[in-house]
């Protein structure tokens, strides 16, 4: 190791942007011993994802997914969040950048504000809400959205009456914590960091530019993001679908696709990648909200190219009755007096049709931030001609300045999982860059030794919170204290203005010590956000952190029962009693740790496996690559150029060279895995060649194969070839003759049962080869017969280029596929041209089949070996489609490349880096801590009936040497499904034991009159 470098590099990272991509990068880095500074220009983190109602293609609630992540970021000891902040200058070089950051005044002191919201209630000034897209109002002192992290309020100076007129100060009077500070001047800070990650997020196209659609003029024309808010249960209409003009429930709802995308005139030439899918999702969710709704989506091309996207669109059509119309809308007009909207479009036969709709949603595209060029200048990076950060296909997350990386939509339009994947990918890149500086700037919390409770009776302390007036105005807090203070086990009960404030934490510690408490109940707000805070406090006072319970009397009581003081107080008493009943039975829990073998095993030596291996090796870990073939390289050996023109073989050669010469990588070729045992941190694998490897993580990069067609006379005529074979011909110097006719057929073996998915690469392959043919000889004739051209994102440029240089695109429908016949040396191809509405007969010299991808046949056996599930198409199913795109539910196993789903080279590289980032988080730890909330297994009660075995999602029960069921607590997540199903009650989940739950039930019913 170079000592000089290790002494220079900083162990901290700057993440610019607090959306989901930045959050993922920050968490991965902070969890693997790097200090993270997150800079966010908004008053809280969350970015675009928090505005979405649900996500495709699973319909998961967006906020439910991102909210725990925001809390995790907000509470992380090694993540500092700088809000209302902007970077003003960057100096230095990779490993040591000096960054100046300007922080705008918030006028609310974050260390004093408890987020109770009393100020907001009193503020008299209403302002159109940016978060709700102008569909509702907020106050001049506000938090961005109800679940904001942090939920410290901010004063909007431009609208505040005090700042504008010098009078009001009502928020100051309302704030019992004294957090309002009108004299806040903001500040400028300087940081030294080793690397910088840019994830500033996106802007949406301003559809008002396209006046013909009537946004801003016709009230019932809304943008897609406005419709997200309309759908959202926490949005302006509380999830009820209403028309803005009259509040009436719309029946006929139309989506207009590509608003501001794929259009060079007053709009953006690129494809925004996500609109086809979000419109489909919105149509489905709208139908779920209101079955009367008849959704119609007007589109040019259905670009459902991602994993399981085509199936989702099929379901939209067949199960939800979503009507897809291939048409461009020329104008939207309002029917006077009704608010209804008239859409005019040309049907497939060319006839003009006028159709009435109740509501129109414009699927507006994504674009870089308005200030993205200035932003780039600040960081000294280049942008491409579209103002996105300039990157390279083979280095997808690196900018033009070394040590500065990019993730998310600043790289190009993309959806959530790809953003998250890139978030982990940049984390992987930074770990490789700063590997040796790991742990140099992070802090760990020191705690006093834990008190021994052996033989002690419960001594419970109860703290009931007023939360300013949030609880106290509805619940009689003193009465709650009075009622519970003499309950069995309770030795102390009191109330406090804000339980979460710093002084209350000190008070709580003091009470624990002075009253010799051994259990604590706080009655305040939700455990989802506040439990860790109080747990840390009592741990600081020498108690095991699991000797705590939080009674939620705000979200689940005072806020829901305003104006019903008596009933609310009764309920609060009951909730606190339930918590006390549980607290009596709480026990200190030991959190075990396991050692980690700092090495990885990668299965598959294709580009995904090699990229992951190199990144992990550069991070400082030993890596074993297991490849069943004799050579490394996988499918990439058959690819010569990328769409953008990069030489793939040269790149591959260099990569293989790097792998083979790396001191920390060992390649086992011509070998397969025979047996793997163990768990995260401690795997042991035996290979078919007899080698035994010990490793802490596993990366499955088993790759895919190309579909071998049986259609269209392939194998019967040497004039019928695949795109891959054509590429090989072109590379080997073959040139098309003038007038030679090439006909390409898309979707061969894809997007049809039983392979109802898009292979993602074929449209780009076809266009790449078509352009090369035309460039070699402009007089060659090329026809591409397609269903939808899916040149998503910035790849749209190449589709446009192909059309510009004279490649013919002819669409076909799946039920009217082209018919091919052999005519001597040539091939006759009959297909219907929908533009001309005529039968087209082509006389091709070459028929080129765009064949798709399939999972590697080995995926099945590998999947069985590691008990990882696969989707109906045979690709590995990740832990979570949106937020854990490279993880498996079982800890310590990751996926990368084609084994996960079809994808392009740059996407495979991103995902492989992401797997390295995620794996690096595990390997960087000397010990892994196991949560205290796990299922405990009692062998003496267990009958080994295997019920737990079948239901456990994490594969933690196993058969031991005696042939009986045993339980691996390291793999356990504490969900308790085993405990629910176990007929012998041999499983109990810590802190959710049956006796604890039954005690809560008893406490909940004790005072209820029983009807006799």
């Amino acid at each position: 190791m170079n000592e000089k470098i290790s002494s220079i590099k900083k162990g901290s990272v700057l993440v610019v942007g607090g959306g989901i991509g930045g959050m993922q990068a920050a968490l991965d880095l902070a969890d693997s011993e790097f200090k993270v500074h997150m800079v966010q220009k908004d008053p809280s983190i969350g970015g675009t994802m928090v505005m979405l109602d649900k996500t495709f293609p699973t319909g998961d609630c967006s906020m439910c997914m991102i909210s725990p992540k925001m809390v995790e970021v907000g509470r992380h000891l090694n993540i500092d969040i700088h809000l209302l902040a902007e970077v003003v200058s960057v100096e230095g070089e990779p490993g040591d950048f000096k960054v100046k950051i300007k922080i705008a005044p918030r006028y609310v002191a974050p260390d004093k504000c408890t987020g109770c919201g009393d100020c907001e209630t009193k503020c008299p000034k209403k302002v159109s809400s940016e978060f709700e897209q102008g569909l509702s109002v907020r106050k001049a002192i506000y938090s961005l959205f109800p679940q904001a992290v942090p939920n410290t309020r901010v004063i909007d100076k431009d609208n505040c009456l005090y700042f504008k007129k010098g009078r009001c100060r009502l928020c100051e009077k309302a704030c019992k914590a004294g957090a309002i500070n009108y004299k806040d001047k903001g500040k400028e800070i300087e940081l030294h960091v080793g690397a910088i990650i840019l994830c500033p997020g996106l802007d949406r196209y301003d559809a008002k530019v396209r006046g013909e659609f009537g946004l801003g003029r016709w009230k019932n024309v809304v943008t897609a993001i406005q419709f997200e808010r309309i759908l959202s249960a926490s949005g302006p209409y509380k999830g009820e679908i209403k028309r803005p003009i009259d509040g009436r429930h719309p029946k006929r709802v139309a989506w207009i696709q590509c608003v501001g995308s794929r259009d060079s005139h007053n709009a953006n030439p690129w494809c925004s990648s996500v609109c086809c899918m979000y419109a489909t999702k919105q149509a489905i969710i709208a139908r779920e909200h209101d079955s009367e709704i008849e959704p119609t989506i007007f589109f040019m091309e259905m670009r459902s190219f991602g994993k399981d996207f085509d199936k989702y669109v099929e379901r939209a059509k067949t199960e939800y009755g979503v009507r897809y119309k291939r048409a461009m809308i020329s104008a939207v007009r309002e029917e006077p007096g009704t608010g209804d909207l008239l859409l005019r479009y040309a049907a497939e036969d060319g006839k003009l049709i006028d159709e009435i709709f109740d509501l129109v949603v414009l699927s507006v595209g994504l674009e870089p931030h308005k200030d993205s060029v200035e932003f780039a200048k600040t960081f000294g990076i280049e942008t491409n001609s579209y103002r996105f950060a300039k990157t390279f296909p083979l280095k997808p997350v690196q900018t033009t300045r070394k040590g500065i990386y990019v993730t998310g939509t600043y790289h190009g339009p993309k959806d959530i999982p790809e953003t998250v994947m890139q978030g982990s990918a940049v984390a992987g890149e930074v770990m490789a860059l700063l590997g040796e500086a790991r742990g140099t700037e992070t802090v760990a919390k020191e705690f006093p030794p834990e008190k021994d409770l052996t033989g002690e009776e419960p001594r419970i302390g109860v703290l009931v919170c007023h939360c300013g007036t949030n609880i106290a105005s509805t619940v009689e807090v003193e009465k709650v204290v009075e009622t519970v203070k003499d309950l069995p086990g309770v030795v102390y009960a009191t109330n406090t203005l804000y339980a979460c404030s710093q002084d209350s934490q000190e008070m709580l510690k003091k009470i624990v010590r002075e009253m010799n408490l051994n259990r604590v109940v706080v009655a305040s707000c939700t455990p989802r956000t506040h439990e860790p805070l109080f747990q840390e406090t009592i741990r600081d006072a020498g108690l095991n952190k699991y000797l705590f319970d939080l009674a939620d009397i705000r979200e689940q009581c005072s806020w829901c029962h305003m104006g019903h003081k008596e009933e609310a107080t009764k309920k609060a008493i009951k909730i606190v009693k339930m918590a006390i009943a549980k607290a009596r039975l709480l026990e200190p829990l030991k959190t075990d740790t396991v050692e980690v073998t700092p090495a990885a095993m990668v299965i598959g030596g294709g580009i995904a496996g090699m990229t992951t291996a190199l990144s992990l090796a550069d991070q400082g870990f030993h890596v074993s690559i297991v490849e069943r073939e004799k050579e490394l390289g996988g499918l990439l050996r058959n690819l010569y150029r990328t769409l953008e023109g990069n030489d793939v073989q040269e790149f591959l050669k260099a990569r293989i060279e790097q792998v083979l010469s790396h001191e920390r990588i060992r390649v086992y070729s011509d070998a397969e895995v025979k047996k793997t045992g163990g768990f995260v941190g401690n795997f042991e694998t035996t290979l078919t060649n007899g080698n035994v490897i010990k490793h802490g993580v596993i990366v499955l990069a088993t790759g895919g194969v190309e579909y071998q067609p049986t259609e269209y006379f392939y194998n019967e005529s040497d004039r019928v070839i695949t795109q891959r074979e054509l590429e090989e011909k072109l590379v080997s110097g073959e040139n098309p003759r003038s007038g030679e006719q090439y006909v390409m057929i898309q979707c061969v073996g894809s997007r049809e049962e039983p392979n109802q998915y898009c292979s993602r690469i074929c449209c780009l392959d076809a266009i790449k080869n078509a352009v090369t043919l035309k460039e070699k000889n402009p007089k060659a004739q090329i026809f591409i017969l397609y269903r939808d051209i899916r040149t998503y994102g910035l790849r749209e440029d190449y589709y446009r280029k192909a059309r510009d240089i004279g490649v013919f695109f002819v669409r076909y429908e799946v039920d009217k596929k082209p018919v091919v016949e052999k005519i001597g040396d040539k091939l006759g191809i009959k297909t219907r041209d929908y533009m001309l509405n005529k039968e087209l007969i082509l006389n091709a010299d070459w028929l080129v089949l765009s064949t798709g991808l399939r999972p590697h046949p080995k995926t099945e056996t590998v999947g069985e070996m590691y008990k990882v599930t696969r989707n109906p198409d045979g690709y590995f199913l990740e832990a979570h489609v949106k937020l854990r795109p490279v993880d498996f539910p079982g800890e310590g196993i990751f996926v990368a490349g084609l084994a996960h789903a079809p994808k392009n080279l740059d996407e495979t590289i991103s995902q492989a880096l992401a797997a390295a980032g995620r794996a690096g988080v595990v390997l960087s730890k000397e010990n892994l801590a196991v949560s205290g909330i796990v299922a405990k297994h009692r062998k003496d009660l267990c009958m080994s009936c295997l019920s737990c075995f079948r239901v456990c999602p994490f594969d933690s029960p196993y058969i031991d040497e005696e042939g009986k069921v045993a339980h691996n607590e390291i793999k356990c997540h504490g969900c308790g499904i085993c405990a629910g199903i176990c007929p012998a009650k041999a499983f109990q989940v810590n802190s959710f034991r049956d006796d604890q739950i039954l005690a809560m039930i008893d406490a909940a019913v004790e005072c209820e009159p029983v009807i006799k």
Partner: protein
Amino acid sequence: MVKAEEKVLSVEEPREISSGWEPNILAFACHYCAFAAADLAGVMRLSYPPTVKVIRLPCTGKLDYIHILHAFERGVDGAFVAG
């Protein structure tokens, strides 16, 4: 010997419901979704009868028949499982 059917009938005999009576309902909610939803209801100031109380579970898969039976035995009028 009493026939099994008769036994069942006697248990199921309907009772008078007095006016103003509110059912006592226990909700068993998954920490990650339904419990979060109950929180959101509060944040949005949506109201529901104060006789509904929530018991947090790590996952609704943790729920045991015994919890529900015990609750009914102790006199709750309804159990709501959400997750």
